[in-house]
């Protein structure tokens, strides 16, 4: 596979990622991971480009991207908040935390990202930190023993920081 076609700057990063993975079909999932790390989601034209480069039907690539929960097909906010809804967190009240944050940011089940693209609030099945349930993560940081109030304060803190 040659990357001569990718003169456009937009595809430069994808080309590099494809080269790192020998443009091999069996590396599709690692490729999608790398692309998502770069763009924070999987833009449609990039998925099509990956399909062409790997000589796969775009539907197959889309099929894989949409199957796994970790891959996002819509842009996400700058701060991605994951509310853990594993069993331990659930019995300790994770839904109240989710609802508190959704209420504060004007989000709901259907609408996960704020209009200013600052926050995305989603649930995940388990973060594996059940000893500190209920748990949320904001990007890479893990917060344990969260209450609806504490969650609200965390959002306030971020808003303050963004204003400054």
């Amino acid at each position, binding site marked *: 596979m040659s990357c001569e076609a990718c003169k456009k700057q937009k595809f430069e990063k994808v080309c590099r990622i494809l080269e790192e993975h020998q443009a091999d079909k069996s590396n599709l*999932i690692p490729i999608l991971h790398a692309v998502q790390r770069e763009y924070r989601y999987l833009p449609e034209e990039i998925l099509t480009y990956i399909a062409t480069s790997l000589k796969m039907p775009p539907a197959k690539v889309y099929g894989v991207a949409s*199957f796994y929960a*970790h891959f996002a097909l819509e842009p996400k906010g700058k701060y991605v908040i994951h509310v853990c809804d594993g069993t331990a967190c659930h019995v300790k009240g994770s839904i109240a935390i989710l609802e508190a944050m959704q209420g504060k940011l004007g989000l709901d089940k259907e609408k996960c990202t704020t209009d200013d693209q600052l926050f995305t609030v989603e649930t995940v099945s388990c973060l594996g930190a059940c000893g500190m349930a209920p748990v949320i993560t904001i990007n890479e940081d893990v917060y344990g023993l969260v209450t609806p109030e504490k969650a609200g304060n965390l959002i306030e803190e971020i808003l303050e920081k963004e204003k400054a």
Partner: protein
Amino acid sequence: MIAATVNLESIKENYLKALEKTQRQIVVCAGTACVANGSLKVFEAIKEQVEKKDLNVSVKLESDKDADVVMAKTGCRGFCQVGPLVTVRPQEYHYVRVKPEDAAEIVESSVADDKPVERLLYSDPATGNTCKTTKDIPFYTRQKRTVLDECGKIDACNIEEYISHEGYFAARKAFTQMQPQQIYDEVLESGLRGRGGGGFPTGKKWALTLPQPGEKKYVICNGDEGDPGAFMDRSLMEGNPHRVLEGMMIAARAIGADEAYVYVRAEYPLAVSRVSEAVRDAEALGILGDDVFGTGESLKIKVLEGAGAFVCGEETALIASIEGRRGMPNPKPPFPAQSGLWGRPTCINNVETLATVPLIIQHGAEYFKSMGTENSAGTKTFALTGHVANTGLIEVPFGLTLREIVFGIGGGVTDDDGNIFEDGFKAVQCGGPSGGCLTEEHLDLPIDYDNLRNIGAMVGSGGLVVMNKKTCMVQIAHFFMQFTQNESCGKCVPCREGTKQMLRLLEDIIEARATLETIDLLERVASAVSKGSLCGLGKTAPNPVLTTLKYFRDEYTAHVVHGKCPAGQCKAFAMPEIDPEKCIGCGLCKKKCPVDAIEGEKKQPHVIDQDKCIKCGACAEACKFNAVIGM
């Protein structure tokens, strides 16, 4: 025959010599829970204090370097409830809930001097005793840590330290002194069964893979721990990744594979990076590579990141995912042992299973069989969570009772605020979405594979979620059904449609739309899904519903017949009323009510119009005098 490439004995000897020269070791837990509580800041603060003392501090003990104080970050120590945890060696002082501000005192008293910092030691709430080391803490003394033994004690990223604990000695024995058949015979003899949930004898699995035709075979380590409420695989991969690799090496030798994969959940970034680092370190020492222990055998291990699909815990779905496809399972047979990754014979084992193997090869099958019960040998790690005083990761021999786990190790049941809730025990959900509920009548049942299966639950991956009397069991069943319905891959109809219908029926019960027929129908659909589904996810999806129906049927009937939620959790059955004694007529609830269901004059007790009320609870939230009752 000992390889010229790597001399484990000399690495061990040099490391121990360097250790002897070190006066103190300060070990900070860097498991996920402790990190969330700020243990990395504690680490930096202590390091700064040690440096202030003009001591020579090293963050990694290396055999060719001298240091006065060695600091290390370990994996999870299990006692997550009281983190961040710090241990000072050689005295083994075990500090709990350490804050960066405590650093100076720790260094002053237990490094420069020899005394423990009393206020940071764990105090046993039952006896009031102060526990200097883990040997005094009931949470630890009642356990038998073998697989987890080094997890939390050693620096996960220091291969020399692992070798100094005789790490990779078992792998070397397997490669240089044992034939493949001897290895699987030993594992079969030990009685080790798969720790991922199924409980299939590991030795048998290997014995099936070895005689398959073809040169190319694969070993896969299943680190796609998707069970909500379980984190033992995570802790092992983060806390002792070399142990997992060593198990994989032995498995590869037993089945004749020269390539292996570790498939790790994407939600576990720390596990991904630690396992990858461990592979690189083992390759650098020549333990992995083209000439394993000088035998001329080759073994390469690759680390792959999953992408968030619970169904990938299924062998065939996991294989599809490694091949770059949607993680959908295939009917068995053919079994992966016959035709797995890229059509080659493949052996898939769970992380904990593989981490157990080096113990068996090193100490023999008899040693392993001496722990546990007749049909379930050895120990099992459990993630003890939920409404229990001591949450965390534990390891106990099979055969221990639930009572010993929940009340002995776990320290008893708690209420929502974390205080001990006498007589509050209601149930333990065991084995995640594939498992079932254990109740008071099972408290004295010795836990093993067969006993749990007989009562409709399973060991599963080992999540134990304790629930108190304030938990609604119908809601718990609904919670698991929501999970399996979300995670169903959609390939087969019984699972795709059946779980959806079960979820609807459960919603009807919770939202007060159900009758007794709903429960009958729910049971019938459950049995159809269980019989007709293609893979383990669908086959076991009805378990939480079936076991709650079996042991908490009266709770279901209370919902549909008496229109009541005994735990008081289902909003649909709430009957909010205003206590005229407490109401001062401030009018706040009236103002907040979105449907104008509250009436009353100022300074007079208010009343809720039950016909208009939508039971949203806004009034109860608004009332400052707790006058709204029945919510």
